[in-house]
């Protein structure tokens, strides 16, 4: 069934289709519609779930950790400051190997106050052990939420579904709502082997001496690495069942591209529109959209970039004193495999629009250069 819905409601419908059992959430702009619609769905008994209206994001994740350890499929949604407040428990959820799925609406961090999009909130959580999926459309949001549970529950690592504030969260798009029975077939009920069970009492996450701690960390890493193939396998199966296939990266006109521009989130749609424009002008440019940050898809990135003469990365984030975070990730993947020059651009922080003209300006600059003159280029900023 096709519906015209906002990105936030795509999350609410996705969580309903995934039959989440415990939701614990706290409101924050621009996430509120996610939980508003879900609270209505739960109150109307259209979903057999408990909704805990907690007093902070920190408690939202704490409640999800409790519920997940007890064997329930759990969901929460947040943004920016809320995600930052949760930070301690993001480590906890991953370390405890809980397949919690959370949506994060990318919103710039304060100060100064902002409610508009950029990626510093979620990218700051890079090393917490959460898998991260960046979405381009509302369709991808609902589809990814369903796939994330399937992946998380196999590898026992939590997943974060990420979408841009307003340009996706509040933007209405046509979404093909997946068929309920098909989703049930794709995503079986969550059956946790090790949970809080009075018939088989266990203690979870107790004090662990140096004699064992490291082995737990190795297992977390291995679980994340194994998720690469599982993300692809489930993305393919999803394609077979629902007609929309997903992978770790999403290429557009990359086969013969001399310049490959890397983007993530909604900037990719603008990038693709601009690729078409530039191709008409004879510039051989393509776009590689990063869908998954963790586990990092080293092989896919290396493969798609292997024939490029120049790589351009447009980051909607900044690691202060370094450069863009995606840029850092991609350069690290290429090191030792390719000598292709990599151009790092920072654009669109705090919700500043990335227009086709913005991207055209970036590519026109790169066309003229053999290699970058500096480590990072700020795009369209006041002097």
């Amino acid at each position, binding site marked *: 069934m096709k519906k015209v819905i906002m990105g936030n409601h795509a999350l609410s419908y996705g969580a309903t289709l995934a039959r989440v*059992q*415990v939701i*614990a959430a706290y409101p924050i702009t621009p996430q509120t519609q996610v939980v508003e619609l879900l609270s209505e769905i739960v109150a109307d008994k259209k979903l*057999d*779930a*408990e909704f*805990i*209206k*907690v*007093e*902070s994001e*920190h*408690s*939202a994740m*704490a*409640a*999800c*950790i*409790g*519920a*997940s*350890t*007890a*064997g*329930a499929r*759990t969901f929460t949604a947040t943004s920016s400051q809320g995600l930052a407040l949760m930070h*301690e*428990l993001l480590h*906890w959820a991953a370390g405890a190997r809980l397949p919690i799925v959370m949506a994060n609406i990318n919103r710039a961090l304060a100060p100064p106050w902002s409610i508009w999009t950029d990626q510093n909130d979620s990218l700051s959580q890079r090393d917490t052990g959460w898998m991260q999926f960046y979405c381009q459309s509302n369709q991808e949001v609902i589809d990814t939420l369903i796939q994330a549970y399937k992946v998380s529950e196999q590898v026992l690592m939590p997943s974060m579904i990420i979408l841009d504030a307003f340009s996706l969260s509040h933007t209405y798009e046509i979404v093909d709502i997946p068929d309920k029975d098909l989703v049930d077939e794709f995503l079986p009920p969550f059956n946790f082997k090790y949970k*809080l*069970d*009075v018939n*088989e*009492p*266990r*203690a*979870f*996450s*107790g*004090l*662990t*001496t140096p004699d*064992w701690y490291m082995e737990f960390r190795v297992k977390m890493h291995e679980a994340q690495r194994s998720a690469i193939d599982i993300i692809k396998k489930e993305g393919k199966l999803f394609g077979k069942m629902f007609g929309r296939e997903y992978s770790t990266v999403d290429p557009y006109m990359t086969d013969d591209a001399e310049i490959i521009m890397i983007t993530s989130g909604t900037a990719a749609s603008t990038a693709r529109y601009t690729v078409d424009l530039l191709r008409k002008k004879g510039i051989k440019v393509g776009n590689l959209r990063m869908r998954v940050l963790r586990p990092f898809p080293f092989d896919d990135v290396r493969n798609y970039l292997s024939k490029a003469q120049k790589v351009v990365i447009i980051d909607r984030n900044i690691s202060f004193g370094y450069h863009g975070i995606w840029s850092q990730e991609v350069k690290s993947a290429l090191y030792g495999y390719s000598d292709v020059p990599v151009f790092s651009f920072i654009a669109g922080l705090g919700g500043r629009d990335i227009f086709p003209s913005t991207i055209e300006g970036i590519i026109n600059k790169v066309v003229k250069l053999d290699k970058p003159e500096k480590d990072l280029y700020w795009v369209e900023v006041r002097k």
Partner: protein
Amino acid sequence: MTKKKMTLTLPVEENMSPGHLACQGCGAGIAMRVTLKALGKNAVLTFPACCWTIIDGPFPYSSVEVPLLHTAFETTAAAAAGIKAAMNVLGNKDTIVAGWAGDGGTFDIGLQALSGAAERNDDVFYFCYDNEAYMNTGIQRSGATPYGAWTTTTPVNHFKKESKKSIDDIVSAHKVPYHATASVAYPEDLLKKILKAKEIRGFKFIHILAPCPPGWKSKPEHTVKLARLAVQTGIFPLYEVEAGVYKQTIKTPKRKPVIEYLKLQGRFRHLTSDDVKTIQEMVDERYAELEERFNKGKQ
């Protein structure tokens, strides 16, 4: 001569194993032992960072015979709420879920989550075993540390000048269906309170005074004596509050002077007779305040 028949006042059932890592004379150990006798085996515990994180034993051991979730310092009540929600939705509605936290995790860093769960009236137990300082990190002052006490962050020359935070009044203000104070010196009283609260749906808060020999600088063999003196002096009156009605459960018609309690603890050794007088006045004032509530409950 007829033999007097002895009756057991506590269940024989043990849900806590020996081999735990509590210090000698640890009040928190006794508190847990009695609590688990009352809760039984159809219960789940969650601990934040606190002495019991250590007492329970390191991975892969545990000395409680019910499922246990270790959680972050400030999250006890929220984690318990999450576990309970999952139990409900998975059809285990009878399973009791209990948060078990120290005074730091309750009075201070965990207060927000406690308030949230109390306000939502989540159907969980919240136990605070109160040893009146951050004992696990080496005796630093908490909001539960009483006036006059030495701790490593309130050194002798600058002993704690603020009075103990009234967590019970804070919980009371949330109008929870049941809350009570309890003591390791009165295990039958604690048992009775838990058994009663087990029949009540909603948020239940039980605040247990648990002396700490290393932190109070007291003798391990004085733990129960000190807990009893705290009640007998009126420093820690035992009562319960059911639907807002106060009831004193252990009567103390002739209260002992506070000096009897203070003099057995090195943490109060520096106090002058004037300081002791101040403490006596503070205790008298607080006790009178509570007595009014007890009397109102009787009407």
